[in-house]
């Protein structure tokens, strides 16, 4: 999974990069808020971001606000990393749109598990998005079989949207995953097939026994 780092301090940025690479993530590094926003607003942006709060031009809080205005199927999981302590700072960060908040100096293991939580949530969102897409496709098929179908009272053909009369089999097959196997129901056997067999026997003695 790719992780975006936005940190204006070169030492802290290099440490973060080294840690994340060691934990198996792909890393995209940026040195200021504008560049970080440039990465996050692109299609195919990393799903995880570790942002410093105080950065020149655009701070971490403003990036969070902008990101939350994007309509993304999988919104990025954002961890704010800052030297600012205090409950109000955490409230401000979460209200701006951050998912998590870690104060500097941070413990490496604490950062590792928090990034893991983010990765787990992103993976869950990716799975859910795929499932929703599958269901939407299925729903599309269901929709095509909804509504009032004009059917012939005699031959039972169905009239489609182009005014063509189709057999029930071809109409349904074209609009669903259903397949047909042909057989004879007991009623039709009694009322139709038996009579036809009797007629054939009468016409062609010896062909049908």
């Amino acid at each position, binding site marked *: 999974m790719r992780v975006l780092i936005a940190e*204006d*301090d*070169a*030492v*802290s940025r*290099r*440490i973060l990069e*080294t*840690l994340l690479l*060691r934990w198996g993530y792909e890393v995209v590094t940026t040195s200021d808020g504008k560049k970080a926003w440039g990465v996050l607003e692109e299609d195919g942006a990393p799903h995880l971001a570790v942002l*410093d709060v*105080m950065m*020149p031009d655009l701070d971490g809080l403003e990036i969070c606000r902008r990101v939350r205005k994007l309509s993304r199927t999988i919104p990025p999981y954002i961890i704010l990393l800052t*030297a600012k302590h205090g409950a109000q700072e955490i409230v401000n960060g979460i209200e701006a749109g951050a998912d998590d908040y870690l104060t*500097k*100096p941070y413990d*490496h293991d604490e950062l590792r598990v928090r990034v893991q939580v983010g990765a787990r949530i992103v993976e869950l969102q990716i799975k859910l998005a795929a499932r929703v897409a599958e269901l939407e496709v299925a729903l599309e098929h269901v929709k095509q079989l909804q509504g009032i179908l004009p059917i012939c009272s005699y031959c039972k053909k169905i009239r489609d949207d182009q005014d063509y009369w189709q057999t029930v089999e071809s109409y349904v097959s074209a609009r669903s995953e259903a397949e047909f196997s042909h057989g004879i129901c007991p009623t039709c056997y009694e009322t139709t097939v038996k009579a036809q067999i009797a007629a054939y026997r009468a016409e062609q003695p010896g062909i049908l026994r």
Partner: protein
Amino acid sequence: MSVEEASINFDPAQSQVQSLLADTGGDAIEATDETVLAALEEVQSEGEPDLIVELIDLYLNDAPQRVEAIRAAAAKLDGALLKHAAHTLKGSSGSIGVLQVAKICKILERPDCVSSAAKVEVLLQLLEREFAGAREALLAERQRRVS
């Protein structure tokens, strides 16, 4: 005005500076926190260039500019600029274990700091002294690692 003289003139609200004065003034070994460097040592991957040497180079390349930016902001009594420059140096110093410098920066970035020119001057002197000590310690550590 010496650091000690200036510290006597501080009001009680500036006691953080007094405690810093008590804390600082150590030799080169105390200028950096070895536990921070030890934690960074664990991050080092085998076969890769020495991370700590790289971080020392990054820090020593960047920090003097930050110190200069702090001094320039203080001269102009520009609180916002001072806060930003001090904040950035605090972050990098803390990350590499130069904790005394980080502590001084923490005071420098406070909004009320810029209101007292005398206090800022003492802090700047302290900062430069502590940074010089940290620089020596980091260069010694670097030399030990590359030799």
